């Protein structure tokens, strides 16, 4: 899939800290290290999966790329420009090129606008199709492309099913003719039979328009299906990053292994034979992450050094990175 030498997006050492507490009712002040030094590269036309459990910082990472959150430090280089140095006016043309698809299309679509208006609005605002008549034609075209009918333009979001609403969300993103789409849990709110429809649609659109996806999700099977490369996050850090095949066939980080072992497989005979490796404990608070490797309190193979030494994300094999002293 990698064809261009220059990456489309380069995220370098992005850190995003939130201050909590200290307000009127706030209790003691603290710093949530939501994203703590994340780096990755995206090439045109590929899909990078970003997996992890809730609170690992995957969504905040996506929001930092979108510049919906301004990173505390680090850089987000898109088509050669560092977005973190741009002001709102300079960002406007860039925003068009980076679109987002959210988990819950219902809360991201204006309930008072028809589907047609929702898709047409940004076409007008960004002057992509300034003529109102042409805009209607373009809306029909987009609806068609995402598997909806022209008459759906007259409907309101509440009149549609979850799958149809997600198609509207995709059509709206597509209207901007973006280069990069951040897909933040785009199928996790959908029923399984509908999930597959949306995943196939995203793949078709990628092939047709040579889109680049940052695919944020917690479902490891879905991520394997759609991604070329996969990054696993834990407590604000990327702990492993590799090609899809290498990551799933030969995971190097104990957290990745635990995640894969935890996924139940729809086959009772296989499940009966399968060894149960249940990871104990819970994800520690990002307000007060453990010293050393953030995973060490839950790690089945941790040694003394893991309690004090922070492991770097190292290239263990060509293209296969892991942040583990024992990898």
């Amino acid at each position: 899939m990698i064809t261009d030498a220059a990456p489309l997006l380069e995220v370098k050492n992005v850190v995003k800290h939130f201050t909590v507490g200290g307000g009127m009712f706030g209790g003691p002040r603290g710093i949530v290290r939501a994203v703590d030094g994340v780096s990755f590269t995206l090439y045109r036309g590929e899909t990078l999966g970003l997996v992890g459990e809730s609170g690992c910082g995957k969504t905040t990472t996506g929001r930092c790329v979108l510049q919906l959150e301004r990173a505390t430090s680090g850089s987000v280089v898109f088509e050669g420009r560092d977005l973190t140095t741009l002001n709102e006016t300079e960002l406007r043309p860039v925003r068009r090129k980076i679109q987002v698809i959210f988990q819950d299309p219902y809360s991201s679509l204006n309930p008072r606008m028809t589907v047609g208006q929702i898709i047409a609005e940004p076409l007008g605002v960004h002057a992509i199709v300034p003529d109102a008549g042409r805009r209607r034609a373009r809306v029909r075209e987009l609806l068609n492309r995402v598997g909806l009918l022209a008459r759906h333009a007259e409907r309101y979001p509440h009149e549609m099913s979850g799958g149809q609403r997600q198609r509207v969300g995709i059509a709206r993103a597509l209207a901007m003719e973006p280069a990069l789409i951040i897909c933040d849990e785009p199928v996790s709110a959908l029923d399984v039979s509908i999930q597959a429809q949306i995943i196939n649609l995203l793949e078709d659109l990628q092939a047709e328009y040579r889109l680049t996806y940052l695919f944020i999700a917690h479902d490891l099977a879905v991520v394997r299906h759609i991604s070329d490369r996969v990054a696993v996050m834990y407590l604000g850090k990327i702990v492993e990053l590799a090609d899809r095949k290498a990551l799933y066939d030969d995971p190097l980080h104990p957290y990745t292994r635990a995640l894969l072992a935890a996924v139940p497989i729809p086959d009772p005979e296989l499940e009966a034979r399968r060894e149960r490796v249940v990871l104990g404990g819970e994800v520690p608070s990002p307000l007060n992450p453990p010293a050393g490797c953030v995973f060490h309190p839950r790690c089945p193979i941790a040694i003394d050094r893991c309690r004090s030494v922070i492991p770097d994300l190292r290239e263990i094999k060509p293209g296969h990175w892991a942040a583990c002293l024992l990898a």
Partner: protein
Amino acid sequence: MGTLLDVRSLTTHFVTSAGVVRAVEGVAWDVNAGETVALVGESGCGKSVSALSIMRLVQGPAGRIVDGTILFKGRDLLKLTEEEMRRVRGREIAMIFQEPMTSLNPVLTIGRQLTEGLEIHLGMTPAAARTRAAELLAMVGISDPARRLPQYPHQFSGGMRQRMMIAMALACDPALILADEPTTALDVTIQAQILELMKDLSRRLGVAMLIITHNLGVVARYADRVNVMYAGRIIERGTAREIYGNPRHPYTLGLLGSVPRLDEPRRERLAPIEGQPPDLTRLPPGCAFAPRCGYRVERCLVEVPPLRPLGDGGHVTACWEADRVGSASRGAAELRQATSATRRAVK
């Protein structure tokens, strides 16, 4: 082991301005003592309403159980007075919900929420109830229970809240637990912990469980028998092995085919079920799945297929074309066998 719960021709409707929603339409299933049974299906198929009907917690006046019997230990729950039913709820049949935060009382301590049932249902003294509450927390894997009892739900993590719900469900030593999407809101490593805990406790204590879920993997790991629901009806039932190894309804086959699987080589393309579930206020006259079905014949559009037995292993399916579906699913299973065999050989 005998039949613990026997649901027959259960029909639950909701009267709305848009028409009558036929949420559950003449459904029959049972749970044996100590057994884990699954109700599987997608949103709106009637699986949660089935559970609420058993507890008689369907919200009136819109919702109403219009027909059926629910025999629990031989007594019809639908014929009990509200007072008698209150003694069944929590005492003999307990329920675990998807989102523990909305089913725990935010202004009562963990300890109080556990002891309340013990005092009311079992007539324990406050002191005895407190001791038992601490035991229950320890049993579900919450460390340092004495320190935890005076805390409030918001001080617990999502996984701990679900453990707490399980402790509450087990408090009065019920014969049956209805678990409605018990791990859907949890992360995958925590989900594994909770499911392992539930399975272990139900085995050790001999509690029967009804797991309601849309997650086919969860069902495969934990259920003895599986009921697949679609549009208010059960369309297939069998042992987990039969349902996964030899699905005989096109919907079951479609569900299994539409999820990507980690145990198989990655497929180039997923095989979704096209279309959408029907509007429950305007169900088609024939089979509700017919509009989305690749095996559809003329008859499917006019006549609702009844559940018919396939062999004598208790496997039943509601499809006129079950034989044709059977040969397709055998083909798919063989293909799977073959690919996983090659994969093992490669490794």
